[in-house]
């Protein structure tokens, strides 16, 4: 049960944190259609996060709810992969190309994960996965379309998507590292071992890159800290600022209901 709660937090936090990042684009996208599209994707992920955090709270069974998990946990208790939290723009850490690059990698990975998760013995996880698979397929296709456009658009846009892919690629190794919780739940038929996703995700990404005429980035991975990374609550220094913004109002008004 502890493992299941922790697992729901992992998958829930991935979605929550990336939704928070994508929502930063709202009113800042390159065109209105993209404002709508990125908000849609953020909303899908927020919906996934809510289902998963609610499930985590339920399984945990100490009376917390999705909001207590989202707003009252400290940084070290968040379990998302670091790829979800880094600033890929519109902040100074990135731009639209970086955002698309992350979305491509993240949604390809999560789609492969959710496809397997539809067979989970946990009925809530399998239902969440079944719903999520459709959404994530759209997110991935949206990102892939933009990779093609940016790679095949202007010289400058090609530079930008190449730089964006290089930046986010440094966080890809972490996606395939099996955490003990994931290993245990995969054995139990409840969760998915991320190491098993690698070949499939690589294949998807290679297909997109090939269609775009791009090489797979060769970059140094951002290392874990003594073997620990996002799944262990070891985040990048960007995470604290993200949480400060996410949580400030909620933490400022103890006892309030919304």
């Amino acid at each position, binding site marked *: 049960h502890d493992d299941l709660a922790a697992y729901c937090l992992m998958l829930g936090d991935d979605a929550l944190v990336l939704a928070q990042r994508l929502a930063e684009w709202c009113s800042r996208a390159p*065109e*209105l259609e993209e404002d709508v599209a990125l908000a849609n994707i*953020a909303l899908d992920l927020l919906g996934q996060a809510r289902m998963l955090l609610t499930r985590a709270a339920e399984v945990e069974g100490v009376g917390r709810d999705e909001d207590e998990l989202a707003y009252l946990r400290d940084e070290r208790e968040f379990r998302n992969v670091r790829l979800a939290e880094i600033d890929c723009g519109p902040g100074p850490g990135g731009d639209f190309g970086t955002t698309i690059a992350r979305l491509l990698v993240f949604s390809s990975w999560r789609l492969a994960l959710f496809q397997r998760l539809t067979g989970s013995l946990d009925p809530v996880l399998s239902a969440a996965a079944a719903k999520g698979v459709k959404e994530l397929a759209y997110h991935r296709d949206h990102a892939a379309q933009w990779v093609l456009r940016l790679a095949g658009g202007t010289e400058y846009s090609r530079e930008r998507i190449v730089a964006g892919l290089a930046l986010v690629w440094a966080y890809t190794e972490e996606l395939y590292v099996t955490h003990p919780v994931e290993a245990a739940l995969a054995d139990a038929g409840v969760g998915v071992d991320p190491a098993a996703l690698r070949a499939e995700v690589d294949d998807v990404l290679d297909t997109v890159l090939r269609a775009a005429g791009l090489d797979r980035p060769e970059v140094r991975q951002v290392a874990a800290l003594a073997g620990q990374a996002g799944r262990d609550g070891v985040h990048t220094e960007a995470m604290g600022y993200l949480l400060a913004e996410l949580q400030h109002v909620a933490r400022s008004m103890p006892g309030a209901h919304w």
Partner: protein
Amino acid sequence: MDLEREFDRVVAADHRVEPRDWMPDGYRSTLIRQIAQHAHSEIIGMQPEGNWISRAPSLRRKAILLAKVQDEAGHGLYLYAAAETLGADRAELTEKLISGRQKYSSIFNYPTLTFADVGVIGWLVDGAAICNQVPLCRTSYGPYARAMIRVCKEESFHQRQGYELLMTMMGGTKQQRDLVQDAVNRWWWPSLMMFGPPDAESSNTEQSMHWRIKRHTNDELRQRFVDMSVPQAVKLGVTFPDPKLVWNDERGHYDFGEIDWAEFWRVVKGDGPCNAQRVAHRRQAHEDGAWVREAAAAYAAKKNSEAVA
């Protein structure tokens, strides 16, 4: 002249003018300006509420708010599309917005200071917008009227969500109730200004009424909004910051105090708390996105020429 007579007949009969129909130049240009300003308002209107998406204090409220701001982008899109049916060019309209040559609703030149503002904007600002916009669902120009039907439906939904947030907050802690009253105090008068200057000072009204682009005067709509809002405020448990607000049995309406028209005109003319900020934000997003739009256009052109070849 037959064309003009036919146009007048259609309008007078409350039928719809469609894009390929003949229409007077003044009608076309008035409509383009009005629809564009309306579209700009939706787009600029994303900012004050968008300001709270990252900080919304519950996941449910975050989702509601994000969806609402997304709807505003959607409304902007329908409206720009309606303007395009009249021969306007969306890129040109955007240029006019970010260079300050076309206006948007002045209400968005006020800052959102707390999360309660999100609720009050839903209740009062969307409420006022709906009062203004419902008649436009029957406006004489077909594409505009149809866009407005969709917009109004979604706006009503937003208004209910805003009011529901406020109800929840009023049922919460004292701190929450204080925030709601504070937000109401700040947004009430600007909401009344949303109906535009008093009829006596309003230009264009007569011609627009004739063309059925407009169907009620500013003061009529403002009165309707006040009459509608007072009982809602009572139910909510807040007061409006107007000691002269009182039921007038004789008129069958609420009387209310004098609006600060000097402030209204200052803000319209550019001297509000956020005018420069709102336009700069939009311009920045537009400029930052230029390379992406260029890439998309270049890519589409390549694909087209490949398809032809």
